[in-house]
């Protein structure tokens, strides 16, 4: 570990803290449905969309209607992308002349992008035409992100409203977030990325002869426009197979910093927006503090492990930290930091290959996802996931001191706690169940590239990433098979919507409640004690469930690595 590396990490955190309020203010304006300066330009587009779609922007929806409308829209979007991918061979915008994407791969990919996972069983270069990248995939990067933020708004309203029967309007939330937040930011980011070297062209590959005289073909495409929303919307699906490790996706250390900040910017703003929505910004800062404690813990371990390097290679006479799977322009600190950011959020973009991290360095991304990606988290999904843990935390605190639990002015009762447990239980049930299944079935065991405990880690990582809607991979796993594409597709769909529906039910249930005024007997949910309780609950509930799995994978792998037992 170097002074320079830690300077980068601390500078990154400082910029994040500075972003929380400005981004939060903008989000709060959208949460309230207020006019922004951008309405001058985009207001007519918004109104035109509503008119054509027959949407009444003043309609208020109860949680059930909000949920059904959101689910149906996502189902239609998913089918749309499935069709685009299956028809690829017949559509224009295909300079490489690629054939249609296969059935099970299209199934997997359409779900993957709809659910904000962006798991990629394919390599972009050899599979996706330019039009498929734009029309089939980029739209989901916007809309799945906007859906996540809209859902967070619905839950915020649940806490903020008193004796109300509604939690907002899904269509207006989603449309406004897309038009007034994501799209304008992406225009700016795209221009920055292009100026930094990210291609933006409709051309295909350029064929050339290298300085040594060898043939090299380099694929170009409309990369920058996809890159901008890929990071900002915590999607993570790369234009190229190597994702943000590819010099055309992430050419410089500066683009790398901007990408990491993009992943967290909206998530950080949402913590502030939550505090504002419930009438006490300190509630938002307390959440952000708990998130940052978990984040910095993860960064420290990952950076330490990668900087310490691989003793197997040291034995052979190689100097320095672990550079397998890492780019020289990023080095160890920025690669370790990126890996923690991308898995703390539900992004899943990678600027280094997690599969080739040291055993403990690679365990941190895995563990982050298993916590439910509530450390800043995916846009929207992070904060609503975190609030589920907060509900459990006040419940546990209530049990310990013998009082009815309350959180930001709402009584937390049996119904909310049951629903929160239901939502949180999806993660371990599906991850551990499907990993266990794949560790014994022939089709499952055909997947891993690496042997021994690391092969098990590849399977565990895949299902963790799918259920948690992350999308990063221990990419040695051969996942483009009917077995993995099918199971991972189902895992992504359930991992997304089996959390969302109970969460919306909580929002509806909270919105209907009266205000429970804060009294001397209320458990304070702003101070250090609360932050500590939150961190403890997340680590115990989220983490301990997976400890046996981690022991079989990364920890066994670590012991093999330090003993030099190769497999």
């Amino acid at each position, binding site marked *: 570990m170097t002074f320079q590396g830690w300077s980068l990490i601390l500078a990154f955190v400082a910029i994040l803290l500075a972003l929380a309020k400005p981004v939060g203010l903008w989000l709060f304006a959208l949460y309230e449905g207020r006019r922004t300066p951008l309405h001058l330009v985009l207001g007519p*587009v918004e109104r035109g969309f509503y008119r054509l779609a027959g949407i009444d922007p003043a309609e208020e929806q109860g949680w059930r209607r909000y949920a059904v409308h959101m689910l149906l829209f996502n189902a239609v979007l998913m089918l749309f992308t499935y069709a685009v991918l299956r028809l690829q061979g017949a559509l224009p915008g295909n300079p490489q002349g690629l054939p249609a994407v296969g059935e099970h791969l299209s199934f997997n990919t359409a779900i993957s992008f709809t659910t904000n996972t962006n798991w990629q069983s394919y390599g972009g270069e050899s599979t996706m035409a330019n039009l498929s990248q734009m029309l089939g995939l980029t739209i989901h990067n916007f809309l799945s992100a906007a859906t996540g933020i809209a859902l967070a708004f619905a839950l915020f309203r649940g806490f903020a409203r008193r004796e109300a029967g509604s939690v907002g309007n899904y269509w207006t939330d989603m449309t406004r977030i897309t038009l007034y937040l994501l799209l304008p930011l992406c225009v700016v980011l795209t221009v920055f990325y292009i100026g930094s070297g990210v291609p933006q062209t409709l051309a295909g590959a350029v064929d*050339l002869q290298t300085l040594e005289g060898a043939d090299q073909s380099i694929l170009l495409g409309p990369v920058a426009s996809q890159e901008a929303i890929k990071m900002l919307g915590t999607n993570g699906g790369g234009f*190229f197979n190597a994702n943000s490790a590819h010099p055309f996706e992430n050419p410089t250390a500066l683009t790398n*910093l901007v990408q990491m900040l993009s992943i967290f910017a909206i998530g950080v703003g949402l913590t502030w927006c939550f505090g504002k929505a419930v009438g006490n910004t300190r509630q938002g800062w307390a959440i952000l503090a708990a998130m940052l404690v978990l984040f910095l813990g993860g960064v420290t371990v990952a950076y330490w492990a990668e900087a310490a390097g691989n003793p197997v290679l040291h034995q052979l006479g190689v100097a320095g930290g672990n550079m397998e799977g890492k*780019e020289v322009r990023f080095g160890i600190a920025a690669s370790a930091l990126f890996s923690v950011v991308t898995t703390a959020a539900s992004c899943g973009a990678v600027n280094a290959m997690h599969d080739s991290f040291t055993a403990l360095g690679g365990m941190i991304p895995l563990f982050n996802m298993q916590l439910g990606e509530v450390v800043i988290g995916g846009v929207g999904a992070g904060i609503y996931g975190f609030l589920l843990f907060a509900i459990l935390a006040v419940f546990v605190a209530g049990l310990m001191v013998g009082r009815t639990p309350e959180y930001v002015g709402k009584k937390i009762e049996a119904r909310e706690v049951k629903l929160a447990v239901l939502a949180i239980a999806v993660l371990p049930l599906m991850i551990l169940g499907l990993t266990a299944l794949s560790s014994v079935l022939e089709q499952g065991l055909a997947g891993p590239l690496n042997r021994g405990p690391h092969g098990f880690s590849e399977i565990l990582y895949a299902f963790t990433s799918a259920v948690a809607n992350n999308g990063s991979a221990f990419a040695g796993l051969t996942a483009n098979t009917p077995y993995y594409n099918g199971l991972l597709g189902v895992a992504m769909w359930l991992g997304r919507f089996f959390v969302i529906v109970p969460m919306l039910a909580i929002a509806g249930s909270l919105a209907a409640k009266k205000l429970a005024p804060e009294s001397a007997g209320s458990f304070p949910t702003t101070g250090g004690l609360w932050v500590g309780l939150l961190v403890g609950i997340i680590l115990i509930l989220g983490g301990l469930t997976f400890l046996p799995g981690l022991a079989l994978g990364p920890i066994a792998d670590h012991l093999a690595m330090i003993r030099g037992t190769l497999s």
Partner: protein
Amino acid sequence: MGKDFTTALRPAIVLTILFAILLGLVYPLAMTGIGQAIFPHQASGSLVRDASGRAIGSAIVGQAFTTDGYFQTRPSAAGDGYDGLASSGSNLGPASQVLANRVSADLVRQRAAGISGPVPADLVTASGSGLDPDISPAAARAQVARVARTRGLPAEQVRALVEHSIDQPLLGILGEPRVNVLALNMQLDRFGGPR
């Protein structure tokens, strides 16, 4: 519930079409137009051309250098090496026998080329993309003797070129010190000598 479903159908279908047009066509095409107008060089892949105008590579994408008279790039897992249509890392785990064998074989090659002492890690590890355009200053310095010998140039001249080619981190903390191998080798070609 049934009413919720029917009221959702029209907005779901119409908004899918409208957003597909806006986000899937208008946005990327407009950005392509703007990008090509403001940054035509970068938007088309930052291609590097020789004196005759022929493209010989991208300034920011690595290419294979195998001969002793050039500074060599890192091992690559992209296709058969530096395949611009198949970016990839090796994805080998830390305790992989395959990784240890590959590194051992590369070390034998480096030792035979005259590198002694601990070998800089990036010289014998595959990058994440398989298209890493850079090597570390240590990895470049380690190759100076071999390149100078092969080209019949004074080692001091080659070493000075390497030191001159090092890109330092932005603001002291962003990025690592590094050497772009294609740019370095193009400079080297100006000195002449057999490759």
